C-alpha cells in the first residue's frame, strides 16, 4: 500500500521539482534556440509518458493488491491494445525525432559567410588563431610545433603569415557574425564547451573538427573542457568575450600575427595586423 502512495509522490515530486527548482540551463547566448525548443518539447513528451506510466502503476497496485479471495484475470495478450500502444509510441518518437533531425541538419550546415576561428587545445590550456586580413588560415602540422611556433603553423604557407595568434589568452568574437570554430588538439582529446552557446564538439589530435554558431549576446563566457583530458581536465578553463564590432576591432588590433611572432627584428614594433600582411605580400 505504501508503495502506491510513494509512486504517486514520485510523480508529483518529480513534476514539482522540474517546475519549481532553480536549476535550469544558463541563458542562451547563441542562435541555437531551436536546440532548447527541441529539448523542452522532449521534456513535455517524456514527462507525460513518465507520469502516465507511474500513475497507472500506482493505481494498479492500489486497486489490485492482494486481498483474501482475489483471483487475477487470465489475459495472455490483446493484439488490439498492443498495436495501438505501438502506434502511439511510434508517433511520439517520430514527433521528437523529426524536429531533432531538422535542427541537426542546420547544425551541420555551415553558412558560407561564416568566419573561421581556430581553437587549439593542449593539456591544459586554450589557444586561438584568427585568419588575419586574407581571411584564410594557413595550414598547420603537429610536427612543426616548438616553443617559437606553439600552434604548429606551417611557415612555408603564405596564408599563415598574417594569422593572428592568441596563445593561452582570451578569445574575442564579434556579435551577430556567424563563426565556424575549427577545433584542433595537439595532444589528447578535448572538447570546447561554452554552456551558453549550447554547441560543442570534441577536438581530436590529428584531425580538425568544427561546429558553427552566431553569438547573439555580448558578455564574458567561460570555456570549459568537456572531454576527459588528464588530471588537469577540471581546471582547463578559458574565456570567450563576445564584443560589439568596435570593441572587437580594437582588441584585434592589439594582437600579434604569426609573422610578427616568428619574424626577425620586429620585436617591440606594434604593427597593425592588416598592414603587416600587406608588407608580407
Amino acid at each position, binding site marked *: 500500500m505504501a508503495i502506491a502512495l510513494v509512486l504517486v509522490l514520485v510523480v508529483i515530486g518529480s513534476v514539482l521539482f522540474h517546475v519549481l527548482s532553480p536549476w535550469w540551463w544558463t541563458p542562451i547566448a547563441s542562435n541555437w534556440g531551436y536546440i532548447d525548443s527541441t529539448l523542452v518539447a*522532449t521534456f513535455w513528451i517524456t514527462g507525460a509518458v513518465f507520469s502516465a506510466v507511474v500513475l497507472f*502503476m500506482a493505481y494498479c497496485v492500489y486497486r489490485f493488491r492482494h486481498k483474501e479471495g482475489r483471483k487475477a484475470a487470465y489475459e495472455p495478450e490483446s493484439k488490439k491494445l498492443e498495436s495501438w500502444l505501438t502506434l502511439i509510441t511510434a508517433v511520439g*518518437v517520430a514527433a521528437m525525432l523529426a524536429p531533432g533531425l531538422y535542427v541537426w541538419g542546420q547544425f*551541420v550546415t555551415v553558412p558560407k559567410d561564416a568566419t573561421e576561428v581556430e581553437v587549439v587545445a593542449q593539456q591544459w590550456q586554450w589557444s586561438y588563431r584568427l585568419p588575419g586580413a586574407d581571411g584564410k588560415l594557413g595550414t598547420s602540422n603537429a610536427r612543426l610545433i616548438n616553443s617559437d611556433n606553439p600552434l604548429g603553423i606551417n611557415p612555408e604557407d603564405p596564408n599563415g603569415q598574417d594569422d593572428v595568434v592568441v596563445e593561452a589568452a582570451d578569445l574575442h568574437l564579434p556579435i551577430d557574425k556567424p563563426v565556424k570554430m575549427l577545433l584542433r588538439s595537439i595532444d*589528447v582529446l578535448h572538447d570546447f564547451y561554452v554552456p551558453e552557446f549550447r554547441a560543442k564538439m570534441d577536438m581530436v589530435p590529428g584531425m580538425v573538427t568544427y561546429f558553427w554558431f552566431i553569438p547573439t549576446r555580448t558578455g564574458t563566457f567561460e570555456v570549459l573542457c568537456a572531454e576527459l583530458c588528464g588530471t588537469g581536465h577540471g581546471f582547463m578553463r578559458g574565456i570567450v568575450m563576445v564584443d560589439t564590432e568596435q570593441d572587437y576591432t580594437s582588441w584585434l588590433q592589439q594582437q600579434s600575427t604569426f609573422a610578427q611572432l616568428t619574424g626577425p627584428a620586429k620585436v617591440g614594433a606594434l604593427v597593425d595586423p592588416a598592414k603587416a600582411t600587406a608588407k608580407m605580400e
Partner: protein
Amino acid sequence: MVDVTPHGADLIPPAEVGEMDLYHPHSWWTKYVFSQDAKVIAIQYSGTALAIGLVALVLSWLMRLQLGFPGTFDFITPEAYYQFMTMHGMIMVIYLLTALFLGGFGNYLIPLMVGARDMVFPYVNMLSYWIYLLAVLVLVASFFAPGGPTGAGWTLYPPQAILSGTPGGTGPGIILMLVSLILFIIGFTMGGLNYVVTVLQGRTRGMTLMRLPLTVWGIFTATVMALLAFPALFVACVMMLFDRAIGSSFFMPAIVEMGEQSPHNGGSPIMFQHLFWFFGHPEVYIVALPAFGIVSDLISTHARKNIFGYRMMVWAIVGIGALSFVVWAHHMYVSGMHPYFGFFFATTTLIIAVPTAIKVYNWVLTLWRGDIHLTIPMLFALAFIVTFVNGGLTGLFLGNVVVDVPLSDTMFVVAHFHMVMGVAPIMVVFGAVYHWYPKMTGRMLNEWMGRFHFWVTFIGAYLIFFPMHYVGLVGVPRRYPELGDTAFIPPSVHTLNEFITVAALTVGFAQLVFLFNLFWSIRHGKEAGDNPWRATTLEWQTAGTPPPHGNFGKELPVVYRWAYDYSVPGAPEDFIAQNDPGPATQGGPATRGGPATQGGPATQGGPA
C-alpha cells in the same frame, strides 16, 4: 574448445543425460572449489562480483565525498579522483553487472529453468569462472601498482589513456587494466558458449522456445550479443596494448605531449571510439536484457498473472538485441566523426525506443487486474519500472542527436546512465536475489531487513539521480573533481551536490544491511520449502532445495505448458507448474514415465 563434454563421443542429446552420466565430484575441493556444477559456479561468480562491486561502491562514496565537500579530503587529489572514477565505472559495468547477470544468474537459472542437469560443457564453465577471478585479481593488482590504477575514465579513450597526463597512463596501471579486460573476455566467451549451447541443446522434452521463461530469453539473447560484441573490446584492448607497449600507431596520431614530440604518427583516436562503442552500446543491453527477462518473471509470479503479451515480449527482446548493434555511434555525436552519421544513428536509436516501450507497457499491463502480492521481489520490480522508465526517457534526450549536443559530457549523462543501467538493473538484481535466495539456500531472507533495504535503496537512489539531471542541465560537466569558481554555476548547485552526497552515503550503507542479511539468513532465515512463491517454472520443481547436483533427481521433468499459467480459470490453484500434465492425467507424476521421485516435482504442481 573441443572434446570436453562429459558425454564423450557417443551421441546423447543432453536433454536425455541420465543422472548416472553426469560428472560427479569426488572430493571437497572438486565439490566446492573447482566445481563443475553450474550452481556452485554461479555462487562463485556472484560472490566474486559482489565482493569487487563492494570496492566499486566504496569508490563511489569517495567520489561523492569529493563532489559534495570539495577540498575537505586532502587525500582525494584530482589524480585519485580520476582513478576512483575509472575503477568504479569499469568494475560496475563489467566486473559486477555483466558477470553477475550472465555468470551468476545465467549459470544458476539456465540449467534449472530449461530442465537440464547442468551446463553442456561443465569443465569449460569452471575454467570460465577461474579466468574471471584471475581478471578480477589483475584488476585489483592495479590498485597496488606503482602510479596506481588507470584514471582514463572507463572508456579508456586514447591518446590520454596511455600518456603521462593521466594517472597510470605511463605506469603499469593501464597495462593491467587492458590485460584484465582481455582475460575477462576470454573467460566470458567460455561461459557464454555454455549458456548459448545449453539453451539450444539442453532443453528438456517439451521445452520449446516459446515455452521458455522470459528470464532465459533475456539471458540467452544477452549472451549471444555479448559473444559478438566483446570481441570489439578485445580488438581495441589488444591494439591499445600494442600502442602502449611497442609504440605502434593504431590509435595514436602525431602529438606533442607536454612539449615533447611523440614517436607516434597518423593513428586515429576515433577508430578506438568506434571499436569501443561497438562493444559499449550492446553492453548496455547485455546488462538490460537479463534484467528485462528476470523482472518479467518477478512481476508475473508475484502478481499471480501471466505476463501480458508474451509473444511481443520475446520479439521485443530479439528485436532490441539485433537493433542494438547499429546504434553504437550515438555515444559519439560530438566526437568529431562525420556529422552525417548523426542522422542515421539518431534514427536507429529512437527506433529502438519502440520495442523497449512495448516491454514497459506489458509489465504494467501485467499488473492490471492482477492479484498483486507486495512481496520484496515485487517491490523491487516496481522500483525497476519507475527507474527504468525514467532513465529510458532521458535516453530519448541523449539519443536525439541535436538535443545531445548541449547535454553530452554533462552530469545529465551521468544521471541518465546511472538511472537506466545502474539503478534499474540493480533493482532487478536485488529483486532476483530476494526471489531466488530461498531456492539457493532453502531459507527466506529476513523480511524486515529486506523492507528497510528496499525503501532506503529505492527512495535514496531516486533522490540521488533525479536531481542530478538538473545539475547537468545547468551545464556542469561530468568528470570534474570540483567545480571551482564558475560563473554560470550558482551556489545552490553546491548545496544540491551536498544533498546528493548525503543521499548516496545513506543508500550505500543500506547495502551493508543487505550484505549482512545475505549471511544472517543462511542460518536464521525462515525455512522456505521447495516452492515458497508458488511459481510455475522448473527451478521450483527440483528434487529438494537447494537443488542437488543434477538438479532433478532420477528423471528429468517433461514440460507440458508455457511458463505463465497463473490464475488459469477452472484450475484448482492459482498456478500450474510447467511440468504439470494437467487434468487429463490427474494424479500422474510430472516426470517422464516411472513413479514419482521422492520430494520430486509431482507433489508440487499437481492438483491438491
